[in-house]
């Protein structure tokens, strides 16, 4: 299927996405440095808080202004993408986009509309049936309903590591996303190529129970690389006990790319 025209944007021209007050959390370095801002985009069910726990502060400590935006209530794929681009364009400098889980899919769509400085897809949920296949294997009772139109429920075991102390608290903060939105995000026409040719990094874990290893390889290959892997970690890298490892690796990669 060919992506719809990038040039003739009738949807935006005839029925623009209505504005909402967006929840944006941030941590900015003091003093502000030369590095581009990083915008974190959580997956479905999560909010900006998921990054505010550890990654925003850590990113700021390493000299990058860090922001995260919550998916709007009553959203749609189009509205999520719109919100990401709106927040990115509101930042003073060309931003780096980092999407996690289904948020990585939102970022992939946003990259076709906004020339990001760089992009990171963390535990990126693959498009289409392969996403459901993987979820079915690890969490049949949470995923099956999605096939019949109900909201899928991600289990605690799927998202968080076994020994994770705060897992229960984190799991309690997840908000159910309507199945309609899941279907939209997963089965949308694949995004057009990123504009402005940004460097893209894929990170994930071979032990992720939502995104299989093969899917990570495929997503990374599409962006001309191999995934950066963090064995032993659960799907929610940013809430895992070992959260500093991936974010440090991501920021190291970014620093290298920006110098190139």
């Amino acid at each position: 299927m060919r992506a719809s025209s990038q040039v003739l944007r009738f949807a935006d021209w005839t029925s623009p996405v209505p504005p909402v007050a967006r929840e944006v959390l941030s941590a900015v370095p003091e003093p502000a440095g030369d590095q581009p801002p990083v915008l974190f985009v959580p997956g479905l069910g999560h909010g900006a808080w998921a990054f505010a726990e550890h990654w925003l502060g850590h990113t700021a400590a390493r000299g990058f202004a860090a922001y995260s935006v919550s998916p709007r209530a009553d959203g749609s794929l189009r509205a999520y993408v719109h919100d990401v681009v709106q927040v990115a364009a509101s930042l003073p400098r060309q931003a780096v986009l980092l999407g996690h889980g289904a948020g990585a899919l939102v970022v992939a769509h946003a990259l076709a509309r906004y020339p990001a400085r760089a992009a990171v897809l963390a535990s990126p949920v693959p498009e289409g049936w392969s996403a459901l296949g993987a979820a079915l294997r690890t969490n049949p009772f949470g995923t099956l309903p999605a096939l019949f139109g109900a909201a899928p429920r991600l289990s605690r075991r799927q998202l968080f590591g076994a020994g994770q102390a705060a897992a229960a608290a984190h799991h309690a903060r997840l908000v159910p996303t309507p199945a309609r939105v899941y279907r939209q995000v997963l089965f949308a026409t694949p995004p057009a190529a990123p504009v402005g040719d940004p460097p893209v990094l894929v990170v994930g874990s071979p032990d992720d129970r939502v995104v299989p290893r093969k899917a990570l390889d495929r997503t990374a290959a599409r962006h001309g690389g191999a995934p950066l892997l963090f064995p032993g970690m659960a799907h929610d890298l940013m809430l895992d006990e070992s959260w500093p490892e991936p974010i440090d690796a991501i920021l190291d990669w970014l620093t290298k790319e920006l110098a190139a």
Partner: protein
Amino acid sequence: MPDTPDIADRHDAVCVIGAGGSGLAAIKNLREQGFAVDCYERETSVGGAWNWRHDRSPVYASTHLISSRPLTEFPDFPMPDDWPDYPHHSKLLSYLERYAQHFGLGDSIWFGTEVVAVSPVGDGRWDVTTRSTGGGAERVQRYAAVVVANGHNWFPKPLPVDTAKYRGQVIHASAYKDPAQLRGRKVLVVGGGNTGCDIAVEAAQQASTVWHSTRRGYWYAPKYVFGRPADQVNDKMLQLRLPLRLRQWIFRRTLRLTVGDLTRYGLPAPDHRPYESHPVVNSQLVYYLGHGRITPVPDVTRLEGTVVELADGRRVEPDLVITATGYLPRFEFLAPELLDIDADGKPDLHLHAFARKHPTLAVIGLVQADAGLFPLAHWQSVAVARWLRLRLSDPVRAAAVQQRESARPLRSWTRLRVVPSSRHWFEVSHTHYLRTLEDLLHQMEPA
């Protein structure tokens, strides 16, 4: 000082002339294709026409967009979605400033520097002569390509009526800035374009008497129809690919049922169908006609003493005549044949952008559409940047693209059925035009 200054070779760098919206888009998109860019801007800041402090800005204090926000913004840098449908010109300026800052374009711009001459060197390269606007020596630098983005709304189109014997004040609309210029005076506004209508409305609120002279009737469109910005409704019809005849019928019907018959106020009936002239979008003109605050009059034939004579023999005595006759394109720094400029001053460019005989010379923003300019300027500059890149990376394919483009029929991107007026030299339908650009972009996609 030597007569011929040393020529500094900038190798593969591209020269962009002007840092208005079009020039900024050109810098950004050329840099995305990996080009080094030197942009020269005669003013000391970005924004071009939208920076109303610039001495050549055609914008007046009250200017608001006529194209609604989604149809005006750059496709890859949207305006904030909580801005109004038709933002004020000061918002447009801050938008362009933020665009420049966001993409760090300032690094590529030399402010207060005017381009005074651009001449081909022979191998596709160009010698660009610049001079500081503060005066001083000229400097010549050699570039691989030149992208002109000098705007086409700053050189007033003269009113071809002798004013030597006239004792009243005549100014072109470009010199109109502030409603205080109108307060308590008897004002004649000439021209029924968007500028003329805006100023007539402003005069209706400020002046003691207002005459509005137009040499033909127009389809004055309101800013809103069916509760939506009018251009968004229009695009719905274009999206559904309704045939022109049907859209014309709907336009007439809608206007009839809402605004009514304009000849009732003494305006001439349009001498053309809807969509055959550049859209004039103004909801207030009719309102002030209805209040009797604006008296429509025909063309001006003579100006003498204190009297202005009109085509129907009427004589009026304004204190101030504002000619809102529009603007003409000007390229003082280029020999006319480089852009195939004819005796009237009209350039002939492929897609209104590519010089026909010079593959490394292009113009951005020399179009006017039924939508905002920036989306067009963006995709034009993407196409120019990809074209320049393709010439270097794959000359064989570039030649094939050029061959195909030269066979592209005019009607696929120009508007053939428009009122014959210099006003319409660069008139395009944004959907037709963008489809053509998209097709060109596909041809140039990396293999």
